[in-house]
């Protein structure tokens, strides 16, 4: 009996050991390159998490069907292991550990949001696993000296400084007065820092600097101040809630301001939820389908938009587009490294200099993409009340002319 037990436990131990050692070679299995990603499929980021996942999947299918990745004369296909991080940073960090140490993943894709990327980055850094992320824009991600973190998107401090430049340009190069209302989270505060830099650079003046509470969806007090101070620009950033609350209360309180600039308009589906009330709002965006960047896989923004809509039944928000771009960056890096050595792939990633449908990609030493400016679009509505987002800045990519100043509510 006793011997039987010993034999059984010995065999099971051997099986466990074998299976785990097989798994730990999982980074490249047969002709598959396995990438890992912890994504918010449930919890408060679940809608954007799903956009991210759809973006990844779309690119994987496209790259695989168009010949895959060529490394060392052999063709490989992408595969992704997903886990649900429940929108929880702690869980995301655990899952990153699990992906790397248990599933043997050696290349990671980023999660959704700056907060979760911040939780995962120390883990990937510890194991020297290259991570290409597409949804963490917070400036603090790029100042920690991470060597294995690469972000295809522009950092948060560049979101709205274009708007200040635009206002100054419209004011014949003279400084403007700026009212600011930002939520108190890492991302929005980064956006705020960028705006402050722009204010300083252009000789403008800030007249209101409010911090919106996370808990409450009411900014009436700030808007009362705006009505009194009459600034040239009102800048608001507080995720989708901030964008929706701002438009609702600005239209209800009839606040007249020559320029209104915001973030998260497309995530908030502003033009759909608010219709004509959202007209003339300027929105910062990482990507817009009318931009004329090109690549071999998705051709251009318009084609990507059409293909994505066909596959998933809704138009791609920029979160999906940038996620797809992350896969293109990985493919390019693998082929240039011509190896699956983590260090070599990391060096190849650092030397990336390419154009995708989403924009140019070139990484600074901190890991952020420095070759892709933000775009500003303006919500424009026709007489029938149908609203569309049109790019108005930078001028190079503009598909419509900026309407400035915003007509007052009494004339609308």
């Amino acid at each position, binding site marked *: 009996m006793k011997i039987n037990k010993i034999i059984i436990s010995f065999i099971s131990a051997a099986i466990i050991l074998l299976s785990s050692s097989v798994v730990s070679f999982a980074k490249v299995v047969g002709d598959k390159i396995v990438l890992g990603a912890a994504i918010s499929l*449930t*919890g*408060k*980021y*679940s*809608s*954007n998490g799903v956009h991210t996942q759809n973006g990844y999947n779309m690119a994987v299918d496209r790259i695989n069907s168009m010949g895959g990745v060529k490394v060392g004369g052999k063709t490989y296909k992408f595969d992704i292991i997903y886990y649900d991080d429940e*929108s929880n940073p702690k869980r995301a960090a655990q899952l990153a550990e699990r992906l790397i140490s248990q599933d043997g993943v050696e290349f990671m894709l980023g999660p959704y949001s700056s907060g979760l990327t911040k939780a995962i980055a120390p883990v990937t850094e510890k194991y020297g696993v290259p991570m290409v992320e597409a949804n963490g824009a917070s400036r603090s991600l790029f100042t920690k000296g991470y060597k294995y973190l690469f972000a295809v998107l522009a950092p948060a401090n560049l979101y709205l400084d274009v708007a200040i430049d635009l206002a100054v340009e419209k004011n014949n190069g003279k400084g403007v007065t700026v009212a600011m*209302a930002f939520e*108190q989270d890492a991302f929005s505060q980064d956006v705020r820092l960028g705006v402050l830099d722009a204010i300083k650079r252009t000789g403008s003046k800030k007249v209101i600097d*409010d*911090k*919106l*509470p996370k*808990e*409450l*969806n*009411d*900014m*009436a*007090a*700030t808007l*009362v*101040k705006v*009505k*009194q101070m009459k600034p040239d620009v009102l800048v608001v950033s507080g*995720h*989708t*809630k901030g964008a*929706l*609350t701002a438009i*609702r*209360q600005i239209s*209800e*309180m*009839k606040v007249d301001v020559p320029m209104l600039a915001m973030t998260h308009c497309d995530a*908030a*589906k502003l033009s759909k*939820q*608010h*219709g004509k009330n959202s007209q003339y709002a300027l929105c910062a965006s990482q990507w817009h389908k009318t931009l004329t960047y090109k690549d071999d896989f998705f051709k251009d923004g318009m084609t990507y938009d059409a293909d994505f809509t066909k596959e998933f039944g809704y138009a791609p928000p920029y979160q999906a587009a940038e996620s797809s771009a992350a896969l293109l960056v990985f493919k390019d890096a693998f082929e240039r490294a011509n190896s699956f050595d983590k260090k070599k792939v990391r060096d190849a990633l650092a030397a990336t200099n390419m154009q995708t449908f989403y924009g140019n990609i070139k990484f600074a030493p901190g890991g952020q993409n420095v070759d892709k400016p933000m775009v500003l679009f303006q919500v424009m509505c026709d007489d029938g009340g149908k609203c569309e987002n049109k790019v108005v800045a930078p001028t190079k990519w503009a598909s419509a002319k900026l309407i400035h100043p915003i007509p007052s509510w009494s004339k609308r």
Partner: protein
Amino acid sequence: MISVQACLDGILLGILFALIAYGMALQWGVMNIINIAQGDLVILGGYIAYFMYLYGIHPAWGVIVSPIIMYFVGIAIYKLVINKVVDRDLFISILATFGISILFMQLMNFAFGADVVLANSDYGTTMLFNSNVVLPNSKIFSAFISILFAICLVIYMKKSKLGRAIRATAQNARAAKILGVDTEKVYAATFGINAALCGVAGALISITFTIHPYMGLPYTIRSFMIVIVAGLGNLPGVAMSGMGLGVFEEFADYILGTEFRIGSVFLLLVLILVYRRFKLSRKREYLK
């Protein structure tokens, strides 16, 4: 003019909070239960109005539909969970309702998605004092409906048989039981009425503000504070402390800045509690 604006904004906001707080005070008083899920019931009510809006019905009708549905949701919660904790320690009920709160958040997130949504009433705006003071009609509508429901409830409590039974149970559950009041039924009805009030408030919030599955907690905290300040079973007190808190909040926001808004409210709460304790201790000395 600014102070008039802040005052009116605060009062309108406070009336809405007072309605939620009234529901909380009611069930706290009757069943000795602090309902952490209060805010989540509010948000669920908001989603009912939002879905009516999506299907082309004016969200204001949510004020009627939402409480009816929420009443039954309330009864269901009572039958499933609350009746098992109603006579137990206050701490157990807090734990139970905290669990319900988490469950509701996740279920709403699962069912309705994690997007921030709102229902547009297109009620326009009222301008006062040469358009120096601007009041969104949706806020005025909310305040009006809140007052209406509060008045109806007070009358119902005073006149109806069930209302009297509820008040009797609140005063002394055991005595009420001996005198033939079916306290089990009273508890269920109380919880249902509370949920219905949350439904009304939720519908109003979807018209005036925005809703999101995880946005319930601030409403729970706010109503909890209002009840603490006003004391249990003190309806005019709840209304006054609701409006007072609303006005105080708006002024704090305007004078100190938005970042101190919530902080100043909590500071006020601490001051009031300290003051009460001070008063109580003086009373005790006097009695000696």
